[in-house]
């Protein structure tokens, strides 16, 4: 034993300790990846752009989920592992709202005079809002019951509780009295329309007709995901930067005891943060289920994990970081599925995380960690 300790560091240890070697390695990989992307782009610019659109579609959904992780972490330093399952509940709420209540069609029934695109938009927005409100309420309840009593407990206790809540939501959801254990086909809230983008303009594509060569296809689903995500991000940004509650949130994230001394209702702010994060996850659930129309009780695990990775990659605690990290993960997944191999997609996405953290341990937008007393 002692002999081993007295030995000189091995070659591997020397390599790991020398940061410049890590940076050189990272640079080499980055160059390799860029080269591969350029080659792929030159081989087929249209299909490459098409894959980039696919990547955005996935990335924006991850962004909405990642925001919940990042906001909660920023304020209470808790990785809320139940977040992916709140996302699942959001998807199921919208499923029941569409399949059983027909909530997406109410404007057409109540106000038949509206143009069809407007009544569809209002219907879809009501579905999204219902999911957001339900998830916000669910997260508020979870926070009050499971996390608040542990506010002053060691951080690991809250983490384990979060994992427990996650399992509870999954397996309670799997019960026949809740969502049931089966895959359920999700009914999209609107009919799919594909548009063909070419140099001569944008034309709607007839269903069942192959798109012409060298054109981009964009479906109303991609647009719907990107527009709703951007809208929510914009509202969130405004809320955090420009409102009193947002200011209080930032203050709480910075220093809880001092905020309390300044008269901020810290517990209330924490609850609001959980609720907002969950509302975004609920919206993400609706968007995800619309893009990939199948819902089941464990559907939140993988997207939740990916979004968590995205939040860490972007710098956990940072709102722009969550967006950038999620878009990087989304693009990395789709482009590696397209140009390397589908089973490798997760390996590539997670490798990017590891490589970035080697150089910037706090993530792309992460502030350098400050030690708290």
């Amino acid at each position, binding site marked *: 034993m002692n002999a081993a300790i007295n030995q000189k560091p091995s070659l591997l240890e020397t390599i790991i300790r020398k940061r410049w070697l890590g940076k050189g390695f990272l640079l080499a990989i980055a160059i390799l990846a860029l080269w591969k992307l350029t080659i792929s782009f030159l081989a087929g610019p249209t299909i490459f752009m098409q894959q980039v659109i696919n990547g955005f579609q996935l990335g924006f959904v991850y962004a909405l989920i990642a925001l919940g992780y990042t906001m909660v972490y920023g304020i209470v330093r808790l990785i809320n592992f139940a977040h992916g399952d709140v996302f699942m509940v959001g998807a199921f709420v919208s499923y029941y709202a569409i399949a059983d209540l027909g909530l997406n069609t109410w404007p057409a029934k109540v106000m038949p005079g509206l143009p069809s695109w407007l009544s569809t938009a209002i219907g879809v927005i009501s579905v999204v809002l219902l999911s957001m409100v339900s998830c916000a309420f669910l997260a508020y309840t979870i926070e009050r019951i499971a996390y608040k009593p542990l506010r002053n407990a060691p951080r690991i206790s809250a983490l384990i509780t979060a994992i427990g809540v996650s399992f509870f939501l999954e397996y309670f959801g799997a019960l026949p009295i809740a969502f049931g254990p089966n*895959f359920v*086909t999700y009914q999209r809230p609107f009919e799919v329309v594909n548009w063909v983008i070419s140099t001569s303009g944008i034309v709607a594509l007839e269903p069942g007709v192959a798109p012409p060569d060298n054109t981009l296809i964009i479906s109303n689903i991609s647009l719907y995901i990107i527009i709703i995500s951007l809208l929510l991000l914009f509202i969130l940004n405004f809320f955090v930067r420009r409102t009193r509650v947002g200011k209080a949130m930032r203050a709480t994230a910075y220093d809880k005891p001092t905020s309390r001394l300044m008269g901020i209702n810290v517990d209330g702010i924490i609850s609001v943060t959980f609720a907002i994060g969950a509302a975004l996850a609920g919206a993400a659930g609706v968007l995800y289920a619309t893009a990939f*129309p199948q819902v089941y009780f464990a559907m939140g695990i993988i997207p939740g994990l990916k979004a968590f990775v995205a939040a860490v990659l972007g710098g956990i605690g940072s709102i722009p970081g969550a967006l950038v990290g999620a878009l990087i993960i989304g693009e990395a997944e789709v482009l590696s599925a397209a140009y390397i191999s589908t089973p490798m997609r997760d390996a590539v996405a997670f490798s990017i995380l590891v490589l970035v953290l080697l150089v910037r341990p706090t993530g792309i937008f992460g502030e350098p960690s400050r030690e708290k007393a």
Partner: protein
Amino acid sequence: MSKRLFVILSLVIIASFILPACGGGGSSTIKVGLLAPLSGAVPTFGISTQQGVEIAVKEWNDKGGVLGKKIELVVADSQCSADPAVNAANKLIDQDKVKFIVGEVCSSASIPVSEIVNQKKVVQISPTSTNAGVTVDKDGKVKPFTFRACFIDPFQGLVMAKFAAGKGFKTAFVMYDQGNDYTVGLAEAFEKSFTELGGQVIGKETYIKEDTDFSAILTKVADSKAEVLYLPDYYNIVNLVGAQAKDKGVTAVMMGGDGWDSADLDVKASEGGFYSNHYDPGDTRPIVVEWLKKFGAAYKDDQGQPKVPDALSTLAYDAANLLIAAIQKAGTEDSTKVAEALAAISWEGVSGTITFDALHNPIKGAVVIGVAGGNKTFAEAIAP
């Protein structure tokens, strides 16, 4: 009082030893055993199977039996599991002196049973066990006394390749789950057969079963302009891929295997697609129509309506018929001769005209079912 009871019980016990021996000794019937999971995880499989076999036995007996003797069906519960199946098979063979067995339903039970029957020279035919190891041993040698009535998985790839080629399609794109033997087997068989039939597989992509985002693959499919998208996976993946294909501009005709056969298949997402299956009640061949009538007359469903036979009942009916026909063809109850006769048989069953290949797998047709207008309808019967 208690003395009299004792005497009666003793007589009953003695009788129970003597009487079956008399029945076995008297060669007035030919015994056929049935191993079916009547309890355990999949009892509905066992019930369906037993119903199919019972109709076959009754038909033969109504025609006067086989070799001038009536057929006696001996049923044993084998629970779709190795140990109970082995016990049930030993009971059938040693106690009931059965020399012909229909069963088991599940591959995991049929394989251990096959070891016993080949030792004891008893003919076994499984109606529905698809695992290759049921009829061949570890060294790839065929087990002389074991047969099956269903086609094995890769055969479905060949069927769909024939169907696609018959429709005039020239190019195909294959997608499969690399971690699932079922989909890998079907995909490989499809690729091989489709190429042999003059088609071309212009793209091949694998995925893992946790995937939900198929946009990257489907963009490639759309770009490749393939006419057929072969996706031999289970219905849940088909639902996801089908829905996403529609918003990536994929116009290829989707095709798959019996994994699609579920009430939960999303008929909107798989609209225009085709899949292969063992049997379809919508088949218009006279023998199928006749079978539906016979089965419906014998069994009623919960609402008291004539019951529609499922694939398990149908394959069980075919298996029992094959076995009894082989006994008749052999002209003797000698199991070695019956096994030889079965290997060389050609029999028109409900699930197609059946002959056996060198590995005791049936060479027979399959049906192709199309999804159109929200309904799953019989499209074509494909000869082998």
